[in-house]
């Protein structure tokens, strides 16, 4: 057994996590549930980029991971501001 198999298995498991979190995005009874699930999808996209960097020995994937992490954080904070402002009106 080669160690590369473990990395490929990790890629498969993170992709599975991606789709399982998507179930909550479709089902989520309230909007914050959906936002939490989308946040987890963003984190698993970062994880997928990191594993891709491991798999291909290409450090450029880590830069992509930084950008996705930044966008996920900004999206979440923007949603929370929107929800609290909508409550006040």
């Amino acid at each position, binding site marked *: 057994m080669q160690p590369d198999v473990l*990395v490929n298995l990790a890629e498969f498991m993170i992709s599975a*996590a991606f789709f399982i979190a998507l179930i909550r995005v479709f089902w989520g009874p309230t909007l*914050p549930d959906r936002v939490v*699930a989308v946040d*987890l999808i963003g984190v698993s996209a970062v*994880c997928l980029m990191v594993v891709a*960097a491991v798999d291909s020995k290409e450090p450029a994937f880590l830069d992509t991971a930084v950008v996705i992490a930044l966008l996920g954080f900004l999206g979440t904070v923007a949603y929370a501001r929107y929800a609290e402002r909508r409550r006040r009106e």
Partner: protein
Amino acid sequence: MMDWLTGVLSLIGATLVLLAAVGIVRMPDLFTRMQAATKASTLGLGCLLAAAAVALADSSAVVRALSIGAFIMLTSPVSNHVIARAGYLTKVPLWSGTVVDEWRSHRDLESDRDL
């Protein structure tokens, strides 16, 4: 040897991320879902970044991995605090087995403001 360390670390990280996703489907309300998703996915990402630092073994890659880790560990508590606050204030229903809700005793329910 380093290849095996990389493989095992990425497998541990991927398992934690998968557990976070299972937690987000299985847990009963918003707040329990959030604590399952955030903690497990942060630790999983930490393990994956350690795997990347071991595998690439390059000073620039190690610095990038450390900076991603520091960024996630700084921003994920902030963003989850903000969602939890917005969720509580927009009256997301709590789980029926909830034992303690400390904020409620500090709030005036009619005017929807803090006392």
